């Protein structure tokens, strides 16, 4: 008998998750667009510089942008970071959803996925 109202509140949480995701994509997309257009108007095309592979770590890139006061680069990097973090938020909130559902097994699994995601991000840092 109590299943219905519980299902409703869960459905509400699912809807909140979807709104956050949609809003997040828009938010990150706007930052990406502004940052990129800004760089493009200022520097012109530089796609040809990417024909050879010379990765520059994100931390170095941010540091460089801060030192050079390159706001266009900072804006677009912020958009990229925000975008990549969206699925993290989704998994975390799904974990909360399962806790509310009193579903321990799947809550643990969702948090395990979250920790694995954070771990995989950190693998990108060259120590």
């Amino acid at each position, binding site marked *: 008998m109590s299943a219905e109202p519980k299902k409703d509140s869960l459905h509400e949480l699912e809807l909140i998750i979807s709104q956050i995701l949609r809003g997040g994509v828009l938010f990150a*997309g706007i930052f990406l667009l502004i*940052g990129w257009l800004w760089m493009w108007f200022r520097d012109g095309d530089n796609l040809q510089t990417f024909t050879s592979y010379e990765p520059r770590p*994100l931390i170095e890139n941010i540091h460089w942008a801060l030192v050079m006061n390159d706001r266009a680069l900072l804006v677009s990097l912020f958009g990229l970071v925000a975008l990549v973090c*969206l699925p993290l938020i*989704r998994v975390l909130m799904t974990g909360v959803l399962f806790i509310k559902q009193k*579903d321990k097994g*799947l809550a643990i699994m969702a948090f395990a996925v979250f920790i*694995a995601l954070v771990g*995989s991000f950190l693998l990108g840092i060259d120590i």
Partner: protein
Amino acid sequence: MPEILLLLTSVGAGFLGALLGLGGGIIVVPVLTLVYHIDIRYAIAASLISIVATSSGAAASYLKDSLTNLRLAVFLEVGTVSGAIVGFLVSSFIKAQFLFLLFGVFLFFSAVMMLRKRGEHISTVNHPWAEKLKLDGEYPEQEHRMIPYKVQNVPLGLFAMFGAGVMSALLGIGSGIFKVLAMDGAMKLPIKVSSATSNFMIGVTASASAGAYLLRGDIRPEIAAPVAVGIIVGSFVGAKAMVKIPAVRIRQIFVVVLGVVSIQMIIKGLK
């Protein structure tokens, strides 16, 4: 000018991807490498970012339609994310040439899979794991009738998801084709449920390696920004246009295009 062209191409890739039910990755990586001659590692990383963008936006609507099996998705994400981690680690030791070869073979496989007819089946028996984790569910058919389904071969499905995760990280694809294959073929889920659940999972799989590539410095805003923005816009328009365009015809043409591009990628890999 090339960057604006890249933006426009990405709009087209997103549009076509939404129309055919594919991620943009399958289109974007060959375009970036074969047309713009961008290094394949930058192309793969940019493609992953665009996959995170489109699937996060799309996941929003999937949650509402009660086709997505959220419990199953989270369970299988354990497999895809661990696969993506392995894929990222392996990627450091793989030469660009081999990536071209692998991508070419994958494109060919995708073309074959697109020709396949998916048979509908509804399983009535649960695997013990599915029973324990309550992974079965029900989905709405016409006239809002709910049809219950069970889940089979859970360990095999989880293992296949691990493989899908490796491929996603290595090739910059959402690897929806592998996910659907595992859910349709091994776990015997209804077509609509496996498509919706696969689409829902793609963003998390892609973000596992996208985050790592971003920190390593493979994702450059100069490439990733126009690609991601273009694909977001394109897939949004594509989803709206889907009902008005006969998808079967486009599918047939696209299979031929995939075949040709796969050969080009393989030739580039062999050079």
